[in-house]
């Protein structure tokens, strides 16, 4: 646990690096004098405008954020609900994986964007969003869960086997606790990829609401201020979610000496 002083220091330096980045952007934008590189004041104006009047169709910024959040959570939750049990099952019974890997592994390498036409012809409405986000988040969660099972320390299993532990006990008390931190990492990576898929998902969703949609609307108009606001909002929300994840992990995995921060 780092000291209070150290924490304050890192907050200070983080704020400082944001300030430095802002200064560089301002200088760059002042030098360019082009509508493609709006100043911070112009970005701020776009931000306030999106909150008070809404976008060109009058949809407020918070409606956009809320719509995207719901979609992210739906796709991400589906990825967890399918990926974790499937990964566990295939890790515990490796034959399941060995005998199906020729179908699983190739799918993993198809980028979510390549699925767009398929999603358009196969699905409608909300399921399109959920499907594309699910595609992005599922594999990191599934694969890390699967691999984590194979990394369970056999010594820990033997410790309880000597006492006559049954398979169910070994799974509950040894396998699950030892794979949980890896699963959490997989979920964190999955959540990041879910956000990366949001623009692609909202490209085909049909509805005019969503942060990705917002960016696309203003891309057609080449209005960079609003586009940058949309980009920053995705980044900030992702950042906040990741921080929350890390705090929860540190709580749950008190037995671990460190929590990875990637």
């Amino acid at each position, binding site marked *: 646990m780092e000291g209070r002083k150290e924490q304050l220091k890192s907050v200070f330096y983080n704020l400082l690096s944001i300030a430095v980045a802002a200064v560089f952007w301002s200088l760059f934008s002042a030098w360019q004098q082009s509508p493609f590189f709006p100043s911070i004041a112009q970005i701020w104006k776009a931000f306030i405008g999106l909150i008070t009047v809404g976008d060109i169709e009058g949809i407020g910024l918070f409606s956009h954020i809320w719509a995207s959040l719901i979609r992210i959570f739906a796709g991400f939750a589906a990825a967890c609900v399918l990926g974790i049990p499937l990964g566990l099952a295939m890790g515990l019974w490796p034959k399941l994986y060995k005998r199906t890997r020729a179908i699983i592994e190739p799918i993993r390498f198809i980028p979510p964007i390549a699925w767009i036409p398929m999603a358009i012809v196969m699905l409608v409405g909300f399921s399109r969003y959920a499907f594309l986000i699910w595609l992005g988040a599922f594999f990191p969660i599934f694969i890390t869960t699967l691999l984590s099972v194979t990394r369970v320390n056999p*010594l*820990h299993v*033997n*410790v*309880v*086997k*000597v*006492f*006559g*532990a049954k398979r169910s*006990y070994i799974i509950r*008390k*040894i396998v699950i*606790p*030892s794979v949980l931190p890896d699963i959490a990492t997989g979920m964190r990576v999955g959540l990041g990829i879910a956000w990366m898929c949001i623009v692609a998902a909202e490209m085909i969703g049909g509805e005019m609401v969503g942060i990705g949609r917002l960016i696309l609307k203003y891309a057609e108009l080449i209005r960079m201020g609003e586009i940058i606001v949309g980009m920053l909002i995705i980044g900030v929300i992702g950042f906040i979610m990741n921080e929350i994840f890390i705090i929860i992990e540190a709580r749950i*995995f*008190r*037995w*671990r*000496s460190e929590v990875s921060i990637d």
Partner: protein
Amino acid sequence: MDSHLVDVNISKSFGKMDVLRDIKFDVKLNEFLVIVGPTGCGKTTLANILSGIETSTVGSVTMRGEKINPHKHNISLVFQEPSCIPWYTMLQDVTSGLCIKGVDSKTADARGREVIKLVGLEGYEDFFPRQISGGMKQRVAIARAYATNPDLLIMDEPFGHLDAQTRYLMQIEIMRIWEQEKKTVVFITNNIEEAVYLASRILVLTKLPATIKAEYPITFPRPRELTDPAFLELRAEITTQCEIVE
């Protein structure tokens, strides 16, 4: 004295490699049997087979005439490698065997605290392994093995990772506990001084594939004096047998 508890008559190979060849001996009730052998000769393999977590290729280990089985017999094994479960507090780790064997949690906790005291770790009950030293972890492993009051206690080079000072203290401690609680112990080591200090009987194993080369009953009174001439003489003789001097 002749009431014997365990009969061993096994061979073990991993694939084409013979590790244990015709290992035949018995373990008597309440004796402190020490098995010495050079590194890599198959001692850990033997410990795992004795405890029932690994199977022999030929032959079997029986306890009171019945094939050894962790689900039936009350056996404990102190592993050579540090074996604390990272997500268990010391108390949870020490009581794990009791919980598996269906002891209610109140009784298990009471016994756990008692054994933690026995190995001198009072006050650390709620610590996780990452918060304690290597020597303390090894004592946790010993406490865990003791907690279930096993009929057979197997210790696989339990002090191998400890510094000389801690090792010496642990030897005295293990002797005190053994004399106090009278258990049947199979103690594995590659340290001959330790063997002569602790054993009521010593078996000497050869290099790979391991066979039993010699057997020494040790009758020196306890506590033993490491510098006693008779002690030193026996130690030298076993060392020659072990071919470690070469």
